[in-house]
């Protein structure tokens, strides 16, 4: 397992590098640039701006210096200098007063002179991660039991009810469900705040809120449910299909013949065997949810990461495009690694060595 993990982490680095290269190439291949406005700027100003952001250099040089800024740890004689955007590293480790190891400078954003990509990671990403994790929890807590009930009560009212809920969840998008929930619970009944997100820095481990209060949970309920419901529907259908297949297997009959209690037949023999496809989808699902979801965050007025995925591309905000895509890639690769480790636990035939 140890050797396998090391190999996987090396692969991960390769994947990230390839993703960074493709993103960089595509991004520059698309026509237009960050400073093309409806009202054309004077050529001198554009030249100055490009010089300021090193866009006047040849592309290969820009790419290499980006890699250097992000991936190569720098040794510096002083720590962060406060409001200087170009000097913003995500990780700053103080060795002595005059020796710092600093790592991951994702660069400035072109749309704001006072914010860096790292600021987005520090302020907006934690909110998206919180929302995404809660939505994932809701998806699992609703979806998996719903699928199990539907499979065990196949072709009964419970099955049809469960699968109707699932179809509803898949087919009603957040853009419909969100405003509907805001209207009912936020505006009409006034049970929950219609918009916003109740967490503020500092974050524990850079992600988890430290000011947990009832108000925080109140803001979280609606968006998490709205976001999680669609995924729960997918999980429910997958769990049902997979469990239905497994409970028809011969070894389930073997278990019954042994005299195993029905509840144990399901939990001990059937469930673990049927969870493989569910776990498979959980990896990409998690990566998608925690890196921010544009529509949900827009609907509920949540200052998360989602909007940067979309606006950075229309703005040709090169560092933000690179940063968001790389972040997504990292999450995806890590999530898939977790999935593969789970496989080995769920199915002893899968061994990595």
């Amino acid at each position, binding site marked *: 397992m140890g050797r396998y993990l090391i190999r996987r982490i090396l692969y991960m680095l390769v994947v990230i590098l390839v993703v960074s290269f493709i993103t960089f190439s595509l991004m520059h291949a698309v026509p237009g640039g960050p400073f093309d406005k409806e009202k054309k700027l004077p050529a001198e100003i554009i030249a100055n701006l490009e010089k300021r952001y090193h866009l006047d250099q040849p592309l290969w040089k820009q790419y290499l210096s980006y890699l250097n800024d992000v991936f190569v740890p720098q040794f510096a004689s002083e720590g962060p200098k406060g409001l200087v955007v170009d000097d913003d590293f995500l990780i700053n480790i103080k060795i002595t007063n005059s020796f710092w190891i600093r790592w991951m400078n994702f660069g400035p954003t072109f749309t704001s002179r006072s914010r860096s990509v790292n600021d987005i990671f520090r302020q907006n990403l934690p909110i998206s991660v919180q929302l995404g994790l809660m939505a994932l929890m809701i998806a699992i807590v609703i979806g998996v039991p719903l699928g199990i009930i539907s499979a065990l009560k196949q*072709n009964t*009212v419970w099955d*049809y009810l469960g699968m109707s809920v699932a179809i509803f969840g898949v087919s009603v998008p957040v853009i419909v469900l969100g405003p509907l929930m805001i209207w009912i619970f936020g505006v009409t009944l006034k049970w929950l705040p219609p918009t916003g997100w109740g967490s503020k820095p500092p974050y524990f481990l850079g992600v988890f809120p430290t000011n947990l209060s009832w108000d925080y949970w109140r803001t979280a309920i609606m968006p998490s449910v709205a976001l999680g419901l669609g995924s729960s529907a997918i999980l429910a259908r997958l769990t049902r299909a997979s469990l239905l297949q497994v409970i028809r*297997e*011969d*070894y389930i*009959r*073997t*278990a*019954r*013949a*042994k*005299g*195993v*209690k029905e509840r*144990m037949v399901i939990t001990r*023999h059937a469930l*673990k*065997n049927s969870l493989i496809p569910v776990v498979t989808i959980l990896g990409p699902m998690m990566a998608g949810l925690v890196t921010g979801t544009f529509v949900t965050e827009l609907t509920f007025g949540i200052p998360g990461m989602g909007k940067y995925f979309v606006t950075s591309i229309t703005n040709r905000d090169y560092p933000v495009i690179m940063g968001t895509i790389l972040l997504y890639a990292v999450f995806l690769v890590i999530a898939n690694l977790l999935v593969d480790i789970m496989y080995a636990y*769920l*199915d*002893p*035939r899968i061994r990595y060595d």
Partner: protein
Amino acid sequence: MKTENAEILLRVENLVKYFPIKRGIIIQKTVGAVHAVDGVSFNIHKGETLGLVGESGCGKSTTGRTILQLYRPTSGHVFYNDVDLTSIKGEDLRVMRRKMQMIFQDPYASLNPRMTVGEIIGEPLVIHKLADRKQTQERVEHLLELVGLNAKFYNRFPHEFSGGQRQRIGVARALALNPDLIVCDEPISALDVSIQAQVVNLLEDLQKEFNLTYLFIAHDLSMVRHISDRVAVMYLGVIMELTGRTELYNNPLHPYSQALLSAVPIPDPVVEEKRRRTILKGDVPSPVNPPSGCRFRTRCPIAVDICAQSKPEFREINPGHFVACHLV
């Protein structure tokens, strides 16, 4: 025949199992039924092997599973030592399961892939609370050696074994609770021919050692002849003929048995030369809508009018030789 006066272990009376066919999306109506087993009666004596043969889909496996209450019968009774299995459920039935076990057809599918061999074989002991952890391991290792496997296989997983070895694991699992009756549901048909004999010999040895009673379901006639004391021939959910094995193979009375046995090659070139096959015409009728009267009449070479009108009684023609045919 050693079974003549032995005590009866299992008595099956008029066992019926229909599988309903349902239509409708929300409100379901039963529009028909698969007549898988339709009035089967027989006895199994203690220590004997009763062979149950028939074509694919004739209800052999369903009979075996219904006897063990893996399917609940539509009607009829199964008496095990005078306990009516069809009337008990829950905990009582679980306790009875210690006495009767099953060996399944497919050794690849019938072992849970994520449990070790030790867990698979030992689970019955654990769930019936018959042994603690240490005793379970000892018993499992003993069982593994009994079926000719290495006791060190305890912590291995099923996928690490060949088909024959896996079926041995299945046999060990069935033996774990010291049952009296084992229903062998085509235990060798998924195995290579070279392995079949090994498993059959193992079953015979175990029978002698533990005085086991077998219901041996198969479609391989020569294998059934080898292992069985008595043989029942089944067609479309009904037993057509039931008698001692020598009697059946030498003197089959029912036209279906005759056709079936004429298909067995004889390992003697001179006799084989003269073997005349009775080839049945047509397909087995659908069990959803079985023929009236005698089930076999649509393909029977000697059928007459009465065969369509009334169902032939399952009569004892000679002592111990039962046949369901109007013309015998």
